[in-house]
């Protein structure tokens, strides 16, 4: 639907060409010879290290540290890791560009409010915040700011602050809550799943699958609300909302953990059933090992493989916060910025959160790959 006066409309030729170029670069990286991958991987790794180190220690020390880091990477890092890092920088650039395009083609702008600003006021604001009318120009300004100043740009809706100063206090809050929820979800989920998987179709199995069906189908705002009514309003054990002491973390962590626990339980149950029917388990039993040793030493590793591949992206998602849980419990975390940035068309906030999320997804996927190699001998021999 064409709306006169919006920034939207169809892609311009320049924008389309830039997207095509980005995709082609990414695809091309797959054909790089191993030697070139080592060089590009190490230099991109150094670049990322510089971006982070500059914030912590300043430019000279950061540069020195990142060069050292790049050399270490080049010399010692496994090829698979360097290959991944090679993909990382172009994919992040493409992510920023495509996100910028999407934002610019959505109706509205960061400067549209209920009261209409005059064209002069809007022009002044656009110049001040570095948000020109063209998406390509914005991309240029954003990249320059990112590379030259190491800044994620100013927020338009929370003024006087750069996006990194907004996200810096929010990220540890979400990481804390997310990590706790993740540990909780894994512990509960694995236990329920393995117990169920060891005796399929038993009463314990039905109880466990029943519980996980409930956990999966209840949305978190319902779960959270039940928790609040029960433990905060009726019993008065826990506070309804807020962030400040340890009691505040219990309800949101449980709310956040339950759906994941339910999913993990299903995966672990399936994994366990599959592993327990394998030949090597029969062998272990045949050589007279006690059942506990069979399960703990031989079955467990195989049973948690599907869970591990789920945990990578889940960890990135859970640790960047949940909008629903955060607003329900009044927690100053990351999740709010994802939604607020988009609703307010606060372009720098949208890009900043997207970058943080993408980096976490990449990092956790790398960790998952490493964990796979450690857990599964078949993967190890392949690489």
């Amino acid at each position, binding site marked *: 639907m064409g709306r006169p006066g919006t920034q939207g409309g169809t892609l311009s030729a320049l924008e389309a060409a830039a997207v095509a170029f980005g995709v082609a670069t990414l695809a091309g990286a797959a054909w790089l010879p191993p030697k070139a991958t080592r060089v590009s991987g190490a230099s991109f790794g150094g670049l990322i290290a510089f971006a982070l180190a500059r914030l912590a220690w300043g430019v000279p020390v950061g540069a020195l540290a990142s060069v050292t880091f790049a050399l270490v990477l080049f010399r010692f890092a496994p090829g698979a890791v360097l290959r991944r890092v090679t993909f990382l920088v172009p994919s992040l650039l493409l992510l920023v560009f495509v996100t910028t395009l999407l934002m610019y083609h959505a109706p509205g702008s960061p400067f549209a409010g209920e009261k209409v600003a005059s064209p002069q006021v809007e022009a002044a604001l656009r110049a001040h915040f570095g948000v020109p009318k063209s998406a390509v120009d914005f991309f240029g300004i954003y990249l320059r700011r990112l590379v030259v100043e190491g800044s994620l740009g100013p927020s338009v809706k929370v003024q006087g602050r750069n996006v990194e100063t907004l996200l810096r206090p929010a990220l540890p809050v979400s990481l804390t809550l997310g990590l706790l929820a993740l540990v909780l979800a894994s512990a509960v989920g694995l236990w329920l799943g393995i117990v169920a998987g060891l005796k399929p179709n038993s009463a314990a199995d039905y109880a466990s699958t029943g519980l996980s069906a409930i956990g999966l189908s209840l949305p978190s705002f319902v779960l959270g609300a039940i928790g609040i009514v029960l433990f905060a309003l009726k019993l008065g054990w826990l506070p309804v909302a807020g962030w400040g002491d340890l009691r505040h*973390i219990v309800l949101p962590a449980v709310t956040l953990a339950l759906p994941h626990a339910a999913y993990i339980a299903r995966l672990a149950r399936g994994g366990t059933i599959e592993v327990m029917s394998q030949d090597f388990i029969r062998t272990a039993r045949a050589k007279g090992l006690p059942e506990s040793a069979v399960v703990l030493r031989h079955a467990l590793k195989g049973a948690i493989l599907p869970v591990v591949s789920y945990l990578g992206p889940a960890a990135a998602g859970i640790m960047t916060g949940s909008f629903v849980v955060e607003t329900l419990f009044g927690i100053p975390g990351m999740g709010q910025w994802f939604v607020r940035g988009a*609703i307010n068309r606060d372009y720098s906030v949208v890009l900043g959160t997207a970058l943080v999320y993408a980096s976490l997804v990449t990092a956790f996927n790398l960790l998952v790959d490493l964990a796979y190699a450690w857990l599964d001998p078949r993967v190890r021999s392949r690489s």
Partner: protein
Amino acid sequence: MYRTLLGILSVFGAALLLVALTFSKTLEAPADLRLANGTEPKSLDPELTTGEPEHVLASALFEGLTRIDGKTGKPVAGVAERWDISADGTVYTFHLRDDARWSDGRPVTADDFVYAWKRLLEPAVGAEYAYMLFPVALAEAYNTFAGHAETLEKQLMPAVTALATQSPLDARSWQDFLRRNKANDPLRPVDDDVLGELLARRTGTLTASDLATFRARLEHARAWLRDESVRARAHFGVDHGVIAKDARTLVVELRAPTPYFLQVLAHNSSMPVPRWALAAHGDRWFLPGNIVSNGPFRLANWIVNDHIRLEKSPTYWGKSEVRLERVDMLSNENQMTILNLYLTGALDCTNRYFPQELAPELKKRRDFEQAPGLVVYFYRLNTTRKPLDDKRVRKAINLAIDRELITKSVLGLGQAPAYTFVPPGLPAYTAPATAIRHDPDEARRLLAEAGYPGGKGFPRVGILYNTMEDHKRLAEVVSDQLRRTLGIEVTPYNQEWQSYLEAERALNYDIARAGWNADYADPNTFLEMFVTNGANNQTGFSSELYDRLIRLASDVSLLARDPDPTLAKLREPEPIRALLAATQSGSPTDREHARERLRLLLLREAESILVEDEFPIVPIYFYVNGTLTQPRVHGYSMRVLLDDGSFGPNLQDTHPLRDVWVDPAHKGEP
């Protein structure tokens, strides 16, 4: 196996360590008062903010020449301890307090106000509330004229040149052209009869010579705007408009007498700002550690998306009257969370941020208080689209809606059905007669007269609303009523906030939900929005008489020049003619009273065009504001003390924190 266990344990340990680290920050002393304050504030710069949460914070941190008194809701002495007003009501001389201090100990001077006002009006600063000071002489010229001149030169004049090739032009395409190019906006300040006649041309054709005249007058207008802007920049703040006579005397010259001017001065847009802090910290000057303020409170802490901590300012001139030591303003948009916090005693006041759908239940509580507010909920009708371009259709829609049913069964907080546009309760303003009522038979008759008997042949229309449960329910009820009464197909549909704003602005809708909140307690804030092509008009509605009435109301002396052509078109010209005579004789006080009554009558005539003749809108209801407040909190009331000693509604829902106090003896839950 032990390795796996060890791994799990260390992850767990790391998680706990992180938790401990996050919470290891020093805890704040408990606040005396904790208030819900809606969404996270955008900024604490009093001149640049527009939202309600920011307004509440700015009023606590800063103080203007006047301030709103918590008991009466009226402007009283703030930084200015007294003022003299000239006999004709256009020159205010403010005498500043000798003990008014910034939080860093500097005195608050007249120069601080001159600096702040010039900053507010500086086009490059981009302050959205700059228009609040337009009653001040030269202020509008300072803020907008250079931009208007540029718009004329770069956009309108080339467009007119291009249009000249298509002449002669019929009046309808001409009006379309004017609307597309937003021609009226930059020309509104220009007083040119020839231009006015051409802009208002709605019948006949425009010849090539008309267009040539138009272009010549545009050139003339552009030169005038540019000259005025140059004059304003040279004189405003120096010897005209606002003048600092000495450190403690500020003279303000108004364009025309403005009865609500003392209210404007209490608004955050006209508060002073510390120029040295702005110079030192740029657009970060209002962050903790940088901010310097002059109000009853100062900023102690700001945790984004959590809360803002205010503490009593030791340098405030009236500190002996401030009874709260520490106040927490919670930033949370979740109304259910706010209610829960209140119910467990973690919050002292929900403000207006409680879940509206629970209103009927909450209304029964003793700690719930409510009052009508200066807010109107209405639907815009797109007068540029068929079939809504026919005013009989617009009237039929207005008559088909049962507002009583909506306020009683759908809303339930005691909202008043709206048959006019300006909310009731404004002093001295009486609503005009209105043709809007619930009359299904007449509605059907009008629709048939417009060519759609029983709704036959009527195209399907949509009701656009921004995504929100309350708006959805209402849109469904209204569409149902229109469907049943008129037999027409009406589809409610929602868009998220930004898309909705964009659609409304681009007139890309049939019927759209809207609300309007008073910036100051005067009908002008509601009525001025519907001037032709006004930025907030957004209905395509355009009436030459309406525009003229709004303009005359802003300066009633203009009417005296040539009253008859205007009076001839009015509904009730006689009282206006009498008042016009009264403004020219009698004592200065009598004249001023006559001018003020004349102004309100002109605005009333303008409103009657909306609700008697043209119906570009469907007023639906007038808001009720409510709050849950713990009984230990005093001075946070929905009622204000009136002049005659009785109590009236707190129309603007303002609760200056300076006048709020907490009874320490009253402990425990409500």
